[in-house]
């Protein structure tokens, strides 16, 4: 069943660890509990977004380097 995972923090969302690096996850990838999905930068401090549920990543709602608010939809997971 598809569900939408929300941003835990407000900030800037990154899909990879550094510019030019491959994304942590792409659409269609399998997700295990504890996998890093992306990073959220809050005032120059980086916090990983870690999967709390396993499944298949269906789609991202935000692009790399987009501003996100806490509670905003981040990605859809087919759990």
């Amino acid at each position: 069943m598809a569900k939408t995972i929300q941003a835990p923090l407000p900030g800037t969302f990154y899909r990879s660890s550094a510019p030019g690096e491959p994304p942590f996850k792409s659409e269609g990838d399998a997700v295990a509990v504890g996998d890093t999905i992306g990073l959220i930068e809050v005032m120059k401090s980086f916090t990983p977004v870690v999967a709390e549920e396993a499944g298949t990543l269906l789609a991202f709602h935000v692009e790399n380097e987009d501003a996100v608010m806490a509670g905003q939809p981040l990605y859809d997971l087919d759990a």
Partner: protein
Amino acid sequence: MGVTSIFIANRGEIAVRVIRAARELGLRTVQAVSAADGDMLAARLADATALVGPAHATKSYLNKEAVVRAALEAGCDAVHPGYGFLSENAEFAEMVEAAGLVFIGPKPETIRQMGDKARARQEAQAAGVPTVPGTEGVVADLDTARVEAARIGYPVMIKAAAGGGGRGIRVARDEAELATLFPQASGEARAAFGDGGLYLERFIGRARHIEVQVLGDGERAVHLFERECSLQRRRQKVWEEAPAACLTNEQRAELCASAVRLAERVGYRGAGTLEYLFDDVTGEFFFIEMNTRIQVEHPVTEMVTGIDLVRAMIRIAMGEPLALRQEDIVLRGHAVEARICAEDPTADFRPSPGTVTGLTLPGGFGVRFDTLLYAGYTVPPFYDSLLGKLIAHDETRAAAIVRLDRALGELKVEGLPTTAPLHRALAADPAVLAGAVHTRWLEEWLAATPLVAPVSPVPATSA
């Protein structure tokens, strides 16, 4: 060149500071804003605002083309870069000038020259300014690094020629560590700065950070004495003072004269700061780098000299010769600045953006608060955590610290945690009161003296 209208290519408290100085000079101000900053204090105070891009700084405040275009479209004839962002970007300064606008800062070639640490060091030596024992220029390879490190003496610091803000710095305690760290640092520097060039210098473990403020008009330069900024966390300054109480008058005179020599040698234009390490055991000082911009902590210098540095740099950019003679600049009293940040000092300085639900500002004689805060403002999560700088000035250092503590007690920011409790603890600490600190003192003190969260009052319950 006639300047009537300034474009402020920055945000936060420094944008507010520049707007105030410009307005006192009768100049119009246009504030750059990202999509996240439309309601910041500087946007409310400026005569007009101009959108420069989305929230992410690389797409707005760091987007050189967008900033220059917005300045032109807004009808401005000068650009003030503030600190951080594009303030020390020589290419940006060139683009501003190529667009027919005045860059309020040094000449682009000076930014480039002093931004390259190896070149800055050569200039310092040529001006007779002491530098930390180290390599002359970039080290070609590991074999050369081994020979040089043996000459300089371990421990040695490995620094990226294009680095800054503490990035790209490693310390090797011996030759084995050097062999491991040198190639790593080179690869990282290439990835981070597009330039793998490295140099080596002696690591001075217990140093004070002392810096000299200068103003120049391209030909003549003066100093406005020094600041001490030894209280740092993760190489970020936390608390700054002017003057540096640890210096004798002879040391102060020698240090400040050396800064003027270097500023005049490079034809410095505008406000700049020369940073030094000071070893208070030997009394030696060593030039480390020059910041070619106005600095966060400039108010402590303004308080002890009575000179408005931001106004002075705008006037110089407008083509006026330096109005100050060295003998007119006199030190009066002592000033202390506490950086108030949106971070929780009881939770490992976790960033804490959010909405300011209530605000009580400190005031009274000798107290100044340069801030971006107003009641109801939502501090966005996208930028630096600095909320404001609380500055106290008094006749003596001891009195200035008492006054700072009094002002900190009046400051109330509701809705989000700030670093104010850290500053109250520092203002009461015997080592801070004695001025017995060095650049690693604060991190050691924090490890030994963790701040605890205040216990929330238990609400009265009625059965």
